[in-house]
């Protein structure tokens, strides 16, 4: 067929993977990202531990793997990036590709800003003692800074010395030059690796995809040997099956699988388009999806053991503070009450002198309370984990390892994001064939860097949360739905099955056909509707770090100002507007073409009649 040997817009051969391993590692690196470390463990912890695996696996099998297979197969077959693929399937569906490109662009902007923060922490880890281990002193040097004293050293370092955050999203503040420098460095790293497309990322991916596994293993071994880790693991993984009745769990499992595999961004289509035409993409799909899920599990074991250690540590300190109160009040000798004796001593005192005990400001120290403290996202990495690392012997080394792992994890995902932007641009032939690829990549990186400068403002974190919550989710679900429907119904199941037979050697089985035709589209539609329902019910608000807040250090719940709310709503569906826009444009263009040819034919007939 003509498409298999389609002419490259820039002439010459289409670039190809140097070997299969590079392709697999690139897809794995793209799928395995920061979310595997800081979103999956949080979901496990919140939704009943091991019980969460049930909806997660069901979503993986019924939704994640089928859509993933479609992306890899269609990219490999049509040998084009996302725009080319959808335009080839049907000119009316070209908007899907453009929408994927837009969402990838927005995601790259804020994803690399997170990498900037990781880089900042990494650079600060090369010193002893770590800068987030102590508070700076106040002006007359008799105590610590009030903000630091009220919250904690790690929160202070994150909110004040890193972000220098303002109390409100409309208060922009100034550009933080330290973060700006780190932003430039991280975009420079991305440029260096993506500079020649898969030629350069293929070499970089060996390190960026494999190094995180090495560090995770080291952390796993260290984590399991820490005191309190095993108790934490057992508690956090103990399944609570009751939680499965909550529909929110199923929605979160489905969306987690969706974003974990980085579907509908166009990156996997781009990667697969560089494959040789005969490649078993079915095996690739299952391999990559399983590796991604296994990594999530592996990471959550490491994370939970460290969290268990931290909870045990905090529990011990709580007991120590209470013991000090008791010793001071009842004049016991110093260090006469150990942590183990505390409960017995307290019970005895409560029985003999309850009034004096009641007057003491004793905290309730329960290990489960500390274990239940969950955090996800930047909170887990920059607050909870950094504090846990402080208590490990050899803290700077662990900090360096941890943040370089996060950096390489994010970097390999950025490769996929950049490829999903650059491959369609190259395929569309936006640049002259003698315009070097390096220059196009450089222009894209430069544009992204300039736009991302707004995240280095003092209110940058709030804007990042806006983009993270509203730009990607709904649009990607919509695009995935159109992908499945487009390939199954518009491209045709029979044609697609023939293509797969040509690529893998046999036609897709009943499982694939059923999921593609019915199960996945229905699942996606229900996710879409459920997501809109959840969004409509939750008020558009954010949690601000306000030192003047009465209940500081708790974050203050504020609602977005009107113009920000409008931005959120626009972000939710603006990229999807490409689809009807392109379809309408195609319709009008076709009608005009028909009119023109009709007029041509009429005038030709008239001429012939006249002569």
């Amino acid at each position, binding site marked *: 067929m003509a498409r298999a040997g389609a002419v490259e817009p820039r002439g010459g051969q289409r670039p190809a993977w140097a070997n299969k391993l590079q392709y697999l590692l690139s897809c794995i690196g793209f799928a395995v990202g920061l979310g595997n470390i800081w979103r999956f463990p949080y979901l496990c912890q919140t939704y009943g531990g091991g019980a969460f695996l049930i909806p997660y696996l069901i979503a993986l099998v019924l939704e994640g793997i089928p859509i993933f297979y479609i992306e890899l197969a269609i990219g490999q077959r049509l040998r084009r990036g996302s725009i080319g693929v959808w335009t080839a399937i049907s000119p009316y569906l070209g908007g899907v590709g453009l929408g994927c490109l837009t969402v990838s662009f927005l995601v790259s902007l804020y994803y690399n800003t997170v990498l900037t923060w990781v880089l900042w922490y990494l650079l600060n880890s*090369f*010193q002893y003692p770590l800068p987030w281990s102590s508070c700076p002193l106040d002006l007359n040097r008799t105590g*610590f800074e009030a903000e630091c004293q009220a919250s904690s050293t790690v929160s202070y370092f994150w909110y004040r010395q890193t972000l220098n955050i303002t109390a409100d999203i409309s208060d922009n503040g100034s550009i933080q030059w330290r973060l700006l420098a780190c932003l430039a*460095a991280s975009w420079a790293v991305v440029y260096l690796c993506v500079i*020649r497309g898969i030629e350069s990322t293929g070499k970089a991916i060996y390190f960026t995809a494999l190094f995180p596994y090495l560090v995770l293993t080291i952390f796993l071994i260290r984590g399991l040997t820490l005191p309190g880790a095993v108790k934490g693991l057992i508690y956090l993984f103990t399944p609570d099956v009751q939680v499965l009745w909550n529909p929110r769990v199923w929605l979160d499992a489905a969306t987690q699988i969706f974003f974990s595999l980085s579907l509908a961004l166009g990156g996997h289509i781009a990667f697969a388009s560089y494959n040789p035409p005969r490649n078993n993409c079915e095996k690739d799909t299952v391999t990559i999806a399983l590796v991604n899920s296994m990594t999530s599990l592996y990471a959550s074991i490491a994370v939970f053991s460290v969290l268990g250690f931290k909870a045990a540590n905090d529990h011990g300190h709580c007991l120590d503070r209470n013991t000090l109160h008791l010793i001071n009040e009842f004049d016991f000798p110093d260090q006469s009450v150990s942590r183990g004796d505390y409960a017995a001593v307290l019970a005895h005192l409560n029985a003999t002198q309850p009034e004096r005990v009641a007057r003491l400001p004793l905290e309730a120290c329960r290990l489960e309370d500390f274990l239940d403290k969950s955090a996800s996202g930047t909170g887990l990495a920059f607050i909870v984990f950094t504090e846990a690392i402080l208590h490990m012997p050899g803290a700077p080394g662990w900090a360096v390892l941890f943040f370089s792992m996060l950096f390489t994890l994010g970097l390999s995902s950025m490769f996929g994001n950049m490829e999903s932007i650059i491959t369609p641009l190259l395929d569309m032939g936006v640049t002259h064939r003698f315009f070097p690829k390096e220059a196009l990549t450089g222009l894209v990186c430069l544009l992204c860097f300039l736009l991302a400068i707004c995240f280095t403002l003092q209110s940058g974190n709030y804007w990042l949360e806006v983009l993270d919550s509203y730009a990607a989710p709904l649009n990607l679900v919509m695009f995935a739905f159109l992908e499945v429907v487009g390939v199954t119904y518009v491209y045709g199941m029979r044609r697609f099955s023939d293509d797969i037979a040509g690529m893998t050697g046999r036609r897709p089985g009943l499982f694939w056909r059923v999921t593609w035709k019915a199960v996945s589209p229905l699942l996606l539609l229900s996710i879409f509707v459920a997501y809109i329902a959840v969004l409509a019910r939750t008020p558009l608000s954010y949690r601000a770090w306000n030192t003047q807040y009465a209940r500081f250090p708790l974050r203050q719940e504020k609602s977005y100002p009107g113009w920000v709310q409008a931005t959120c709503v626009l972000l939710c569906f603006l990229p999807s507007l490409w689809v009807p826009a392109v379809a309408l444009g195609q319709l009008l263009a076709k009608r005009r073409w028909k009119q023109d040819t009709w007029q041509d034919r009429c005038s030709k007939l008239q001429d012939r009649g006249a002569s």
Partner: protein
Amino acid sequence: MLAYAMRRYLVQETTQISNVLLCNVTSRVSFWFVVTNSFTNMTTIPRNDVEAAIRMNRNRINNAFLLTDDTLQFLEISSTLAPPAEQPRPTWLIVFGVILGIIVIGIVLVVSFGIYHRKRYKNAEKTEDLDDKYEAAITMENRIPCHTLDLKAGQINGVYAAADDDRFTPL
């Protein structure tokens, strides 16, 4: 110790141990004290002066008992804290400079290698064009110069020669 502290502060050599009066001594080594004016044994030295004296000599007092600010506590006298260890130059800037330097060098190398590679490829194309023109002078049949082919004898297709005669239907 306290007498010593008062002496240092007031620059009076006359304060003696007997001027420091203790009361409420407990077995956990805590007590209340007042310091009387050495000149008039009745009046006490005001609290602020005593506080200031202790603050000035806190280190000395601690060292005498081999205790620290955490273990020897003067109620309502907050200790002057030592500032956290400040690096002479910001460490992160050094590491940042190193990393950025490596990246910039890497980018320059890759770009210049690409330009060099492209120039060489263009030269190679030019020489290939010349070769083509030269080869066009020789008559070609399927990129094989005609004069090497033995046109009279013809070519024997080995497939048919090696095949069994049984495979072909006999006439």
